[in-house]
């Protein structure tokens, strides 16, 4: 793990650690919590053959959709891509391999890897076809589906506030998959709007302890993009 004092780096240096062919977790549920600045740098540097793990595919023209549109993503592990017609087209045309899980199962597979386990047993989707072959295991007199944990080489996460050691605080509904992914990847690159000196954050308000964060970059709030499909109720 990176020493505490060496975590704060540039977005270029942090993203240059990612090789082509890597498996990446990307935080965010829709736009909130999506590490837009890290993704745009990944697009600029040109890594390809990527496997992405993200709840959704963002919306056309922003976030991971830019990587999908540029042909850099070979496989997407996700839950719902209904807000991205480009990703659906790429999937239907066979250019993008898509694995779809129930949302909470995807979250739990990631949480499970982050907690250092191999997998878990669940009854979710046991009587329905989730489109994925699943191993069933009998335990205490009934059948369960075995869900292996899901890990990654890298996680790209977004925080609203952090300190230089990599303690992270998420704003609003921007937490979503970020704290789970921050535990489940070998290397975790976090972007934050605001990076404070150690001691500035109240320890009781930290969501992701710095032990899980490898590198931290400060990004301007203007790097964030709002979903175009977001709407008033």
């Amino acid at each position, binding site marked *: 793990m990176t020493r505490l004092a060496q975590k704060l780096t540039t977005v270029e240096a942090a993203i240059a650690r990612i090789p082509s062919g890597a498996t990446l977790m990307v935080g965010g549920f*829709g736009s*909130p919590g999506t590490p837009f600045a890290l993704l745009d740098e990944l697009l600029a540097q040109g890594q390809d053959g990527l496997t992405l793990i993200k709840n959704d595919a963002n919306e056309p023209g922003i976030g991971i959709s830019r990587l999908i549109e540029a042909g850099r993503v070979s496989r997407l592990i996700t839950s719902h891509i*209904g807000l991205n017609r480009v990703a659906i087209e790429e999937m239907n045309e066979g250019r993008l391999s898509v694995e*779809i899980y129930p*949302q909470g199962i995807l979250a739990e597979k990631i949480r499970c890897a982050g907690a250092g386990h191999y997998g878990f047993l669940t009854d979710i989707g046991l009587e329905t076809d*989730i489109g994925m072959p699943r191993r069933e295991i009998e335990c205490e007199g009934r059948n369960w589906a075995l869900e292996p944990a899901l890990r990654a080489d890298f996680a790209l996460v977004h925080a609203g506030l952090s300190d230089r050691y990599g303690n992270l605080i998420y704003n*609003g509904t921007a937490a979503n998959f970020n704290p789970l992914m921050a535990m489940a990847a070998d290397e975790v690159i976090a972007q934050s709007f605001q990076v404070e000196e150690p001691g500035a954050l109240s320890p009781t308000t930290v969501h992701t302890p710095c032990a899980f964060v490898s590198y931290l970059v400060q990004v301007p709030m203007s790097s964030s993009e709002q979903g175009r499909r977001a709407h008033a*109720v």
Partner: protein
Amino acid sequence: MPYDQQRILARAAREIEPGQIVNLGIGLPSQLFNYIPDEAQVLVHSENGILGGRPCHPDEAIDYDMIDAGGAYITTCPGASLFDSSMSFAMIRRGRVDVTFMGAFEVDEVGNLANWKIPGKFSPGIGGAMELAQKVRRLVIMCSHNDKHGNPKILHRCRLPLTAPRCVSRIITDKAVMDVTPQGLEVVDIAEGLSIEELRAATEASLIIDASRVGSY
């Protein structure tokens, strides 16, 4: 064929009891937000990680970090909490959500629900529907009684891939309110102006109708 969404919404709002924890699905159910009175002290749950969301008033500043699972900008009401998506689904799987409202492509006599996939036509993903349908205490379906070609959506048995088997408690359409019972689909209310014969003609499923007990809405 346009259908009467207002009738469905107004009727569905009566299903929410004060003090409940409620989840509203994407589409028509999300509009129920606007039918919940403040004094009801209801907390609306959303899959991304919030309990106690409410729509922003038109003059309220938007916080771009605050959306519900359907992508609508929201804010918090008193008693709200924010958490990650894993905890959000723990709440669902542990049965802590009292009632959820969802749309449907098809529902059938034993309460099977199909609302996530039309093979070859529509497969954007599962999202949270499967876990909500399987684990929520009470699942209320809000949908048009017939599709845009007039075909029944309330069937003997679902033909599309299921979201979850035997999960639906009540179905509210523009034509009727129906409960899933061990005996079959029992009609609770019929839409004003519709006859029992017209309802049966628009429905593939067998309906149990006790004319002396059926209400209107």
